[in-house]
């Protein structure tokens, strides 16, 4: 026998069919734009890099919003805070590594 209890609305917040479909269509479009830009090769390299990175950033936001249902409501405050903190750590990690390693590379040339 299955018991049906109200499930809490936190965690991976409850989505709706609409949010999953919106997320799916947007993420497929953004992926195809990114791959299309590189595969057709009609855009110059710096422009292609910019388009691809922009598409990736938007796609990550789409996934967070429509698949993980992250939003600004108070129930999500700690999740969003943890994400922002992680973002800072990642920036220090990746940015710091690249800065130091490429600087070192130049000096040893």
């Amino acid at each position: 026998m299955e018991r049906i209890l109200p499930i809490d609305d936190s965690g991976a917040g409850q989505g709706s069919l609409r949010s999953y479909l919106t997320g799916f269509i947007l993420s497929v479009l953004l992926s195809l734009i990114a791959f299309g830009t590189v595969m057709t090769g009609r855009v110059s390299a710096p422009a292609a890099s910019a388009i691809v990175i922009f598409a990736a950033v938007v796609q990550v936001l789409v996934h967070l919003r429509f698949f993980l249902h992250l939003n600004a409501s108070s129930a999500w405050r700690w999740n969003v805070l943890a994400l922002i903190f992680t973002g800072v750590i990642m920036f220090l990690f990746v940015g710091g590594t690249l800065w130091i390693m490429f600087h070192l590379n130049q000096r040893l040339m």
Partner: protein
Amino acid sequence: MNTEAATIDSAYVREAPHPDTAAIQALGFWIYLMSDLVLFAAIFATYAVLRGNYAGGPSGRELFDLPYTVVETMLLLFSSSSCGLGMLAAYRGRKNPVLIWFGVTFLLGLGFIFMEINEFHTMIVAGNGPARSGFLSAFFTLVGSHGAHVCAGLLWMAVMIGQMTAKGLTPPVRSRLMRLSMFWHFLDIVWVGVFTIVYLMGSI
């Protein structure tokens, strides 16, 4: 007498599940996901440093087959959506649709892993294994770490399909399903980083 009753009551309360258990567990799992993200950041940073060190070996442009990566990406995007549809059915307490959607998600994830193993196999057989160059070491570490996570997700999903069949959609099972779906969506986000930085930036 009253004191005793009160003691028993409070003991009972302590045993009873906290009303916010699922929410607290979800936040705890979210913190784990964030720490996993830091792990991936370290591997991405390593890849970014080593991406040009070909040591006379092939570059990403020569190795990557972008249409193949498009198919891999689509498998993951479809699996994230079917996982979401499975969760919608789980919230409504309908077991069979949940089993079907998670079954579909499992097969899509398995397809992704097979494609990735095939890609690795093709590269290694052609002499372009992780030992070939710094770039390839970093490539196999980064893409392999994501693949290992997907494998762990598949194992977890198989266990959950078993639990649903055996126990039904009890509150603990649904709470676990929710965390599994968070994990699966999270892996999709990491894959966006992988295909952008490794496959696309490597082919420009």
